[in-house]
């Protein structure tokens, strides 16, 4: 059996052209001859392949036809959202970047602003510090001056100084602090009525910080002095009061004896708790009866409510040292004892003078 005949038979078998007899014979042949069987399979395969090949070709042809009929322009436009999407994505990216940049800008500006503000505040604080330092310097200078004052030295500052003084005799002798009149070119005194008189310093004691002034004006007319100088020591807790000129008007202040010694343990002075201010220097310190127990000299700047007054014993010593003939009698009878404080002051204020020093 040649190949052609075999193929013919295979095809006839597969296409059903064989009669029953032939078919049975062919199947028997296939069973017995593997080569024939193989040929049959190969034939089936190749024809199937040919058919599918053909179908596929036809399909491709049809699809090409369909494809050719497609409106590619329109499809390209429809597919264009791809690049458009890229652009929109870029735009979104740009928006995000812009937003981020804005936030960064705002943040940095805010930070800069805050830092600058903080710096400014710091500068203000520094300025205040500087001012406080200056104040400190001022205060320490004051303290220094006070120290100097306490050491009975001449105030360094030129110009006008003010203090207080009180009459000690009927004929125009006054007591005040040495530091008030120290280095003075001229001294004027003024009473509560506003009458001013010229005075000179006639006796000074640096150690007790006391000075005796004499009114040189002939117009001066004195009155009898209603208080005496108390020679006994005032006791701790004893009520005292004072009249002075911390300003242009006479000012009353009261307090008590705090201690028997003064600044830095000075036994010639009392520590007094009484409101005193610059200008009070030389003011009389009086007890409840209205007698002189001391002369206000100064205060401690580093603590509140601490003032110092020279004891009246120092005044007595000073007065006794003075040439007697010049001065009148200084120990008078107290005429204020049974008066109320208001009445005492009313009588006293005529004998307390503001002392103005020009140098």
């Amino acid at each position, binding site marked *: 059996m040649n190949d052609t005949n075999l193929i013919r038979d295979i095809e006839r078998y597969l296409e059903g052209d064989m009669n029953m007899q032939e078919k049975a014979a062919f199947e028997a042949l296939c069973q017995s001859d593997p080569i024939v069987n193989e040929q049959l399979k190969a034939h089936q395969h190749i024809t199937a392949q*040919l058919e599918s090949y053909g179908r596929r070709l036809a399909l491709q042809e*049809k699809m090409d036809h369909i494809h050719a009929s497609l409106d590619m322009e329109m499809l390209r436009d429809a597919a264009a959202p791809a690049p458009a999407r890229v652009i929109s994505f870029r735009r979104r990216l740009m928006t995000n970047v812009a937003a981020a940049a804005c936030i960064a800008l705002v943040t940095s500006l805010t930070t800069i602003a805050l830092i600058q503000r903080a710096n400014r505040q710091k500068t203000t604080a520094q300025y205040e510090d500087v001012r406080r330092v200056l104040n400190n310097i001022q205060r320490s200078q004051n303290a220094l001056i006070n120290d100097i004052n306490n050491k009975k030295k001449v105030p360094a500052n030129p110009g006008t100084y003010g203090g207080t003084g009180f009459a000690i005799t009927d004929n125009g002798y006054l007591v005040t602090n040495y530091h008030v009149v120290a280095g003075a070119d001229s001294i004027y005194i003024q009473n509560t009525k506003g009458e001013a008189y010229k005075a000179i310093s006639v006796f000074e004691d640096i150690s007790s910080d006391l000075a005796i002034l004499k009114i040189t004006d002939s117009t001066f007319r004195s009155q009898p002095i209603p208080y005496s100088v108390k020679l006994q020591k005032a006791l701790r807790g004893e009520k005292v009061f004072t009249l002075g000129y911390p300003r242009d008007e006479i000012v009353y202040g009261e307090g008590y004896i705090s201690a028997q010694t003064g600044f830095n343990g000075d036994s010639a002075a009392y520590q007094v708790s009484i409101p005193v201010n610059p200008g009070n220097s030389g003011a009389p310190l009086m007890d409840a009866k209205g007698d002189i127990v001391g002369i206000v000299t100064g205060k401690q700047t580093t603590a509140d409510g601490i003032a110092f007054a020279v004891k009246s014993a120092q005044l007595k010593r000073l007065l006794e040292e003075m040439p007697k003939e010049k001065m009148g009698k200084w120990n008078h009878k107290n005429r204020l004892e049974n008066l109320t404080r208001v009445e005492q002051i009313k009588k006293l204020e005529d004998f307390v003078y503001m002392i103005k020093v020009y140098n």
Partner: protein
Amino acid sequence: MKHNLNIERDRELLLGLARNDDKALSTIYVENFPAVLRMVLQHKGSEDDAKDLFQEAMIVLYEKAQTSEFDLYSKLKTYLYAICRHLWLKKLQSGNWQLSLPQELEAVLPADNHMEDHDKKDEQFRIMEESMGSMGEPCKTILEDYYIRKLSMADIAEKFGYTNAENAKNQKYKCLMRLKKLFFDKYKL
């Protein structure tokens, strides 16, 4: 409901495709090609790439549609798109731009056993195409006329000027034998 209706419509189209209904083929082609074109263009492919890719996917679909066991379980559009992605991925991997593989495609490679089938069929098609290409005339046309276009031997005999169908048949057998030899040289059963 709508989803089910769409599936029903897709099944109708698929049946039409299997029956070689030109209208069904055209409908599927026109409706699904734009999505694939967009995908390919997005991934820096050309329009011709898109055409080749889509037509190959259509062939896969066609082959599947002809097997009775094929049942469409997802939308036709999804199915075609998945196949196209798979083919595109394969093409990118086989090319020399392996490194620039788009992340989106890299992520999901549809586990599709359909594709193995298709690869086998595709191989056979290529061999057949080659074999048929190396067949001379009139063998090629006779085989095509008989086995593909299903013309009768009488018509073929008349077309090619054979005196009778029997001569034409003998010629056809010779041609078939040559094709068999060419085909099975490259393809082992």
